[in-house]
């Protein structure tokens, strides 16, 4: 990491020397992290090289978080990939960076202000029109002829790999770690491609070693094995973890229509369908997607669909159909900023109330918003179990930030992720129709699958009687509403209680949900370093609303702060609805970008100072 340990969060000169020394020597120290960002046009291989850099970090034993930002187009535009490597677990991106790898000038223009003093820019001066005289004098510009070096190993396309080698040298990283990472990135590609990339990386590496031998300012070196096992960790996105959860959860049928940020799921399942025996369907539109999935669920398989707000809008009518026919279904709604097409490749938590209220009528549903990789995996397994047990739709609310950012995480334990199926319907010789929607037996009666003798019933979108025949009688309607909505009471007992993380009796108490958990978690750590005691309650199972836990938290809070990635504070309004408490401090962001921990820290410092 940085050789000269620095205090990121308060770099003002007001820190006296003694403070500085304390920070340098202070053991667990936030300066034990390094922030690297690469930028260029779409098509320059930004994402692949970002992932390789992250893999190099995990190979060295660091925790990583990485995040890609890209516009909705295939060539051109401005793309970046940021990796935070840390000796302690890291859950969010950073506002400030140590090293910027610029494959074009736009990267420098846009991001040079984000560098820490003494930060570095790695660029190709021969290809640049940037006048260094006009640039920041407190950052170092490392000129590496990416294009010239790349020319020897296959041309322009290789400049990303050259730049990676160059930065590995600036970090004094053992080149073998980079080779390991390249091997993973190019797994399945020919030996020739791997070799070319390794040579290209090496050329950048050696160039920097030769040209800047006195100036290798950072360190990213192999961590002692006992202190970190990240090389054995999984390196995955929320989408990946959710997909693994779905596979483990017994999903057999998956249907989708491509839409960022969930398209990766369709591709993943399609690729793995033969190996796991899945049926995967890219249907004609999202209306077909959800109706197909309901057909498959009705016939007895576990099905899942995924989309974003636009596709979910088309699915809304059939969401109610799932509820009315009491057909299980797991829906992943990966949010992105709306309305309409909005910002297709960016992030927001703008669909909470939409997911909660979508479709006409009153009916029960579960909504879960995973906030980390473990939750993406384990709560997806739970989603399948609950959908089938209660015969209701379960909505998994993610967003671009959690769906597409990579984290390192320990391998998931399968024992803790068991498939639990309700008792199977037992066939009988009866020719009579079966009262599947019984008003007399338990809230959920056994669901026969078509093909089973003695189980004939109707799954009916019209209000119906116990067999499912259309029925408009007031008494039956009332009883059927009670049957469906009565499930809500049982739901609550199923769900894990949210837990407060951070210091007990803290000065600052943050409420958040879903993907803001990462930035808030890291912010709490920074606040602790600043001697501001803080804790947070992150809500994962959003609905049924965990009233008791939230009420206890808000009523005992000192400085209650809401952190939400939307304009109106949708979760805050639910908190008020359920607890009567209006949250005094609201930190809302709706620029299409997730919070940086630093932003949260700044806001909380303000609150604490002015309170």
């Amino acid at each position, binding site marked *: 990491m940085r050789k000269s340990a620095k205090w990121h969060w308060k770099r003002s000169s007001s820190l006296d020397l003694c403070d500085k020394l304390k920070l340098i020597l202070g053991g667990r120290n936030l300066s034990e992290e390094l922030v690297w960002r690469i930028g260029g046009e779409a098509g320059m291989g930004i994402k692949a090289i970002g992932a390789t850099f992250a*893999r190099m970090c*995990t190979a060295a034993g660091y925790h990583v978080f990485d995040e890609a930002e890209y516009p909705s187009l295939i060539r051109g535009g401005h793309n970046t990939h940021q990796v935070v490597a840390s000796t302690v677990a890291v859950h969010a991106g950073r506002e400030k960076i140590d090293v910027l790898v610029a494959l074009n000038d736009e990267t420098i223009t846009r991001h040079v202000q984000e560098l820490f003093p003494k930060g570095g820019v790695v660029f190709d001066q021969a290809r640049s029109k940037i006048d260094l005289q006009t640039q920041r004098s407190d950052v170092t510009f490392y000129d590496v002829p990416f294009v010239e070096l790349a020319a020897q190993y296959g041309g322009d396309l290789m400049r990303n790999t050259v730049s990676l080698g160059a930065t590995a040298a600036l970090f004094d990283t053992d080149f073998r770690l980079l080779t390991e990472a390249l091997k993973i990135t190019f797994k399945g590609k020919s030996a020739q491609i791997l070799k070319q990339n390794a040579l290209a990386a090496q050329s950048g590496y050696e160039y920097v070693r030769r040209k800047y031998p006195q100036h290798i300012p950072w360190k990213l070196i192999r961590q002692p094995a006992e202190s970190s096992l990240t090389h054995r960790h999984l*390196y*995955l996105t929320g989408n990946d973890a959710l997909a*693994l959860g779905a*596979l*483990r959860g*017994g*999903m*057999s*049928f998956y249907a989708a229509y491509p839409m960022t940020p969930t398209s990766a799921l369709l591709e993943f399942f399609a690729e793995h*369908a033969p190996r*796991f*025996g*899945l*049926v995967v*369907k890219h*249907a*004609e*539109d999202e*209306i*077909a*997607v959800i*109706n*197909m*999935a*309901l*057909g*498959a*669920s*009705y*016939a*007895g*398989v576990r*099905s899942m669909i995924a989309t974003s707000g636009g596709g979910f809008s088309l699915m809304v*009518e*059939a969401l109610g159909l799932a509820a009315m*026919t009491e057909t299980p279904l797991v829906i992943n709604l990966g949010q992105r900023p709306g309305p309409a097409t909005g910002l297709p490749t960016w992030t927001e938590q703008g669909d909470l109330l939409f997911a909660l209220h979508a479709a006409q009528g009153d009916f029960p549903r579960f909504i879960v918003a995973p906030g980390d990789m473990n939750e993406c995996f384990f709560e997806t397994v739970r989603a399948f179990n609950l959908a089938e047990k209660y015969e209701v739709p379960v909505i998994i609310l993610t967003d671009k930030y959690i769906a597409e950012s990579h984290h390192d995480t320990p*391998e998931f334990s*399968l024992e803790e992720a068991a*498939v639990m*199926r309700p008792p199977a319907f037992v066939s009988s010789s009866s*020719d009579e*129709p079966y009262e599947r929607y019984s008003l007399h037996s338990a809230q959920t009666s056994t669901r026969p*699958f*078509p*093909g*089973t*003798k003695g*189980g*004939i*019933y*109707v*799954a*009916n*979108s*019209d209000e119906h009687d116990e067999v*499912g*025949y*259309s029925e408009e009688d007031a008494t039956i309607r009332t009883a059927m509403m009670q049957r469906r909505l009565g499930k809500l009471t049982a739901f609550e007992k199923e769900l894990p209680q949210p837990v407060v993380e951070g210091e007990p009796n803290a000065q600052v108490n943050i409420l958040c949900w879903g993907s803001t958990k990462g930035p808030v978690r890291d912010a709490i750590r920074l606040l602790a370093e600043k001697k501001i005691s803080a804790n947070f309650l992150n809500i994962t199972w959003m609905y049924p609303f965990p009233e008791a836990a939230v009420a206890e938290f808000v009523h005992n809070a000192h400085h209650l702060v809401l952190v939400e990635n939307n304009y109106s504070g949708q979760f805050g309004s639910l908190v008020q609805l359920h607890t009567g408490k209006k949250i005094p401090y609201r930190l809302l962001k709706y620029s299409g970008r997730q919070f940086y921990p630093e932003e949260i820290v700044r806001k909380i410092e303000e609150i604490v100072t002015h309170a």
Partner: protein
Amino acid sequence: MPNAQKPLTIIAPKTAVKGGKQNWNTRVFPTWCAGCGDWGVWAALKQALTNLGKKPEEVVIVYGVGCSGNMTSFVNTYAFHGLHGRALPVAEGIKLANNKLTVIVVAGDGDGYGIGVGHFIHALRRNFDLTYIVHNNAVYGLTTGQTSPTALKGFKSKSTPEGVIEEPVNPLALAIATGATFVSRSQAADIPHLAQTIEAGIKHNGFSLVDVFQHCATFNKVNTVQWYREHAYKLEKPFGPQEKTKAMGKALETGRYPVGVLYHEERPAYDDEVTELKKGPLVERDISNVDITPLFDEFR
């Protein structure tokens, strides 16, 4: 819905299927208007199931929403009454989950050729092994008689008092053009012919369109039983793949409309071609302990 009054004449009473081994009726007696063509479709469908020796539990009927869809409560099989226009994707999902089932779809023309026409086109391309029975009455029955997409140009109703401006949807031509393997039409008033057509459709391995000229006694005073009798003629035998253009020519004829199986082709059904279904129905897959650990290596 104009079904409050008791049906006066019942074209297809319960006894229509007497003699068959199965009783396809439920305890709910149909609510259609007296003289509605839906009675005929109901009778013919049950007849076809009987003729094929089907058992109620091995049949799933997926219904759209309309007077046609109201058949949901009247036939004793597994059933799924979906949303208006969305019966086909539900049926496709059922077939993908369990391809052993006989899956039949019952829809209206507003349902199938209006709001749900997108699904129709894709179902045709896919050639799922489904039988698609469309009650084509040129009106929206259940919403009390507005014009449907198959109404002939100039047709007047409450929603088009000055007459329809657009050309009607031509389901048979659309089906042939989109890769259908079984394209047929019959009439609700001709129960034996309709039963035979549905039976052939169910037997056909692939997507079978059975477009039914269905008179709406209450809201369509133009396309009456008499009108269909005068404007339809029976086909001798279906055209095959070699004569596809001839079949298309017939489908495009106006003024007089062919009735019978217009086009027939043998081609593997979608569900036959899905690799995973070759091992057996998806619903039989063991999901109790799916081992995902080998995948972990993909995420390093």
